[in-house]
């Protein structure tokens, strides 16, 4: 189980490849890996975004992330998990977050990875500040429900 913040850019597929390779004891045990990768878009709420600053609360952020992963472990049959979140100055197309869950069966991995992502968005103390192409600098005021189309809000 690995929970980390990174001030440096990373390639999510390389991270996942390396992590899985290191966890030799998992080989043959897991049948399911569910992964979510969050990536910085170059637009938000109709505006072009050129760069982003991702602030956090050192200490509390790690504490909350650890709690969220532990809650997932209590609820689902998880073999291993990886949670890596970027902080600092971020450019479009940089990876913001990786959540990966390994389990024997798919339902546990699917549920747990989504639970971790949704809880992270609600509870982990991170704050995004966007610099727009117009030069305007603004704090993102809240996270969306995660769907492009409003129709999905009702779900």
């Amino acid at each position: 189980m690995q929970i980390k913040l990174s001030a440096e850019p990373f390639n999510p597929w390389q991270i996942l490849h390396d992590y899985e390779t290191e966890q030799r004891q998992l080989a043959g045990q897991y049948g399911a890996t569910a992964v979510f990768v969050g990536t910085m878009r170059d637009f938000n709420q109709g505006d072009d975004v050129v760069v982003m600053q991702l602030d956090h609360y050192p200490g509390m952020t790690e504490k909350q992330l650890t709690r969220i992963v532990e809650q997932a472990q209590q609820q689902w049959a998880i073999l291993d998990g990886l949670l890596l979140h970027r902080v600092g100055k971020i450019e479009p197309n940089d990876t913001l977050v990786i959540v990966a869950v390994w389990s024997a069966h798919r339902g546990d991995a699917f549920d747990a990875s989504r639970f971790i992502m949704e809880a992270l968005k609600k509870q982990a103390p991170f704050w995004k500040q966007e610099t727009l192409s117009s030069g305007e600098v603004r704090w993102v005021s809240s996270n969306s429900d995660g769907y492009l189309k409003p129709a999905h809000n009702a779900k």
Partner: protein
Amino acid sequence: MSIKVRYFASLKERLGHAETELELSAPLSAGQIWQRLNPAIPLPEGTLTAINMEYASLDSLLTDGDELAFFPPVTGG
């Protein structure tokens, strides 16, 4: 009784500083501490409160050595 108070993100910018040390002679709640430190600024709606890096309510009483934090809704991920 010594309390450390921290502000993050837009709240830090608005108040113009990131943290304050506060000496108290009697226990105060998180909400009372905000009022004492920022008498002219009502606590912005949606502000979150943490004591010692755990979410807490505005009614929670602070004790010596506690770290109190105020911050806007989180936007990670």
